[in-house]
């Protein structure tokens, strides 16, 4: 049972889980992009502080997502990060500015002033969502790279992965990639508005405006998401055979949904949960728990997207230059020994998840209030 193939599938599953949790946690970045919708300094301070208690989690998930990819599918790590250089560097820069902005924004002597740090938070948050969405979309719509392992000892240069001269910026020439970036931003904003409703006690006016945000961004998200899914189901995908050869298959992602009914079911449940949370939050006056069904729905939808990208013999990173160089979970993974060793470590993940949930619950069971922001406690 515990063959290399099993561990490849298992690690793609874990990568999917990390990716899904990361997209859910992007509500922190989505919330940052909304802080200028606050009507007072106190409101903005409360929004930043509610988000700020979670910012390390989205950072950590991004880092672990990258680390897990490196460890389980190193050929993806070396090809994508070294190739789509500018795309990844831009993503990292947005995160760098966000990290310090929380801690520095309200501190005396911060040189640039609170407003500049808030602008970093706002723009950084929006760009992080769009850029990460665009990067993930290349899992479906491909990238311009080639891989020649023989270069290690045979070519003019020993470097095995080469990329288009634009080094990641070409991702923005594909409208589908931008579309997914926008979808992620709108979803993150929807989730953030629900998070504010749940965690900030700033009066009825604030709650009503957040509910309006849920409706506004929720509807926009639904429209753009449907558009992206249509693009996805109509596009061609790459499929690998048992001999490792890769061929183009029409409507591959649609076929994946049809052939893996359980993935289609997960996607459907996810979509229903997200829509339910949006509608109930927007139209039910006292309902403030929308973040949970919407969050779970988000995780299910992203899981389904990752699964149709990598399972069912699908190349999860198509090469637009040479289809045979496309990356699959079979041709880009670590060895059985490494995957086994890491799988043993991964058994601790439920324990890690349990203490995160407990700490989260401990900190958020009391909402953020203006009184708390005026006290002597640590705040951003």
């Amino acid at each position: 049972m515990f063959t290399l193939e099993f561990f490849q599938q298992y690690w793609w599953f874990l990568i999917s889980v990390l990716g899904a949790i990361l997209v859910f946690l992007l509500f922190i970045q989505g919330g940052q992009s909304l802080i200028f919708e606050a009507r007072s300094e106190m409101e903005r301070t409360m929004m930043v502080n509610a988000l700020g208690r979670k910012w390390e989690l989205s950072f950590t998930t991004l880092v672990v997502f990258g680390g897990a990819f490196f460890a389980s599918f190193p050929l993806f790590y070396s090809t994508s990060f070294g190739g789509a250089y500018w795309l990844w560097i831009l993503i990292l820069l947005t995160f760098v500015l966000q990290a310090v902005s929380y801690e520095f924004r309200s501190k005396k002597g911060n040189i640039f002033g609170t407003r500049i740090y808030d602008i970093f938070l706002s723009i950084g948050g929006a760009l992080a969502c769009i850029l990460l969405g665009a990067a993930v979309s290349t899992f479906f719509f491909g990238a311009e790279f080639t891989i020649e392992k023989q270069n290690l000892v045979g070519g003019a240069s020993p470097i095995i992965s080469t990329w288009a001269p634009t080094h990641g910026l070409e991702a923005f020439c594909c409208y589908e990639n931008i579309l997914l970036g926008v979808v992620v931003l709108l979803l993150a904003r929807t989730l953030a508005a629900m998070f504010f409703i749940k965690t900030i006690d700033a009066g009825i006016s604030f709650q009503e405006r957040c509910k309006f945000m849920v409706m506004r961004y929720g509807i926009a998200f639904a429209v753009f998401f449907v558009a992206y899914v249509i693009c996805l189901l109509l596009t061609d995908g790459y499929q690998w055979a048992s001999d490792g050869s890769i061929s183009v298959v029409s409507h591959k992602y649609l076929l994946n949904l049809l052939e893996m009914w359980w993935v289609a079911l997960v996607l459907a449940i996810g979509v229903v949960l997200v829509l339910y949370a949006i509608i109930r939050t927007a139209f039910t006056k006292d309902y403030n728990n929308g973040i949970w069904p919407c969050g779970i729905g988000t995780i299910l939808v992203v899981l389904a997207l990752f699964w149709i990208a990598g399972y069912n013999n699908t190349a999860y990173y198509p090469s637009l230059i040479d289809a045979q160089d496309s990356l699959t979970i079979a041709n880009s993974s670590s060895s059985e020994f490494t995957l086994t060793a890491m799988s043993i470590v991964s058994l601790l993940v439920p324990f890690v998840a349990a203490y995160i949930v407990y700490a989260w619950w401990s900190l958020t069971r009391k909402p953020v209030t203006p009184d708390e922001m005026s006290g002597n406690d640590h705040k951003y």
Partner: protein
Amino acid sequence: MNDLTALVDWSRAQFALTAMYHWLFVPLTLGLSVIVGIMETIYFKTRDEKWLATTKFWMTLFGINFAVGVATGIILEFEFGTNWSNYSWFVGDIFGAPLAIEGILAFFMESTFIAVMFFGWKKVSPKFHLASTWLTALGASISALWILVANSWMQYPVGMEFDPEQMRNVMNDFWALVLSPVAVNKFIHTVLSGWTLAGVFVVGVSAWLLYKKRNIPMAMRSIKIGAWVGLVGIVLTAGSGDGSAKVVSKVQPMKLAAMEGLYHGHQGQSIVAMGIVNPAKTHDNNEPEFLFDISIPYGLSILATGDMNAFVPGVADIVNGVSIDANGDTISTISYQERINRGKLAHNALRNFDQAKARGDNEAMNVARSELKENFNFFGYGYLDNVEQAIPNVPLVFYSFHIMVILGGYFMLFFVLVLFFVYKKENMLANKWVQIIAIASIPLVWICSEAGWITAELGRQPWTIEGLLPNCAAVSAIPTESVMITFFIFVVVFTALLIAEMRIMLHQIAKKSKEDLDKAEL
């Protein structure tokens, strides 16, 4: 300039820049988290509000520092992919695992409990809060463990074999990786150097409070904790440093020779306590090694092997493949030219294997595999054109090593001095010079810490993985101009963050020091 050389140089510069900035913040996180943990433990035991005030004072500084450490760290992890993509493939099967484990075991622990540590004072029980503070400290140290395991593996690659079918190295012994002597020594040395650095920081800042006659009781409390943690840190750092030197003499003799500026070794080799390296000296000329030096007889033989009469090879000995055995007889080792030749044989064997595989010729594959295995230990040398490329920058390594050692010795005396004075309050207050020395020592401890990493990383050049992969074969295929642009972006961003961080810290210290913290409302 050759394009590849320029690309490698800029990629190295960018990685060094990120790593050095990152290391400005990490050791303070490692050490200050322990100091804050001790202070909060005393508060938990005594429920004395003065200890709570002391804990919160240092915790605020910890938080400011932590954020920039995270910001620079996130880039560092991804730079393995963005700038060293060939490396990421060649050893991703081995190197990626510690990074992933670091994320699962350490980063989540750190990021979860640091939020409780800062925002949980009135939301969770004191016991849970104290546990969160210690778990944050533990998470930081576990994080250091796994990244240092990964770094140690680059210095001493064990627990793996090369698979010609996949054209990469694959792991075959996880525990060899984790428990390698390089990793064990490096972990102890690095984490405890963080305790030393934080100890100096706490003592120095507290001495400034004494100098200004502000919050004297809190400053005295802090100095006692900081100095004890610092003393334990520096003693164990020195001990593990000695262990490191003995391991380096076995697995990276060229690095040890560079650290000592030694070109021609002898039995009963002396150690240079301080000196000026002759910049004209090379491995193949007869120039003197030093323009000036003060040496301690037998010192290097003892440091490297524990035997005062042992032979320690110099740069020229290693390059020429010359050594002396225990009987005093000259023996041959493998010269660098021979290593280069055998490295090229390994490359040729790998090419032959690949071609045989394409033809389906199993017999030729087996022959090539056997030849590759025979020469694989020198695989990286096959990328070099001449022996000079395999020699690190001796003066730079020598000076950084000696700065680290001299300052390390100084800090041992420093903590003893501070502890001698601090237990007689009037002595600590009356002797302004002790306070001034403590304040002036703050930048020195960062210089010491950075010098340690410069020694470790420049001493192993030109290798990303010792003997197996030089820098020139590890980079990503990106335009040099792109790396130059990101290098300068990082210079601007990191420098701005550093200046902002230092100003905020100074403001926090100045502002808080003007309050009577022992009577502050908490």
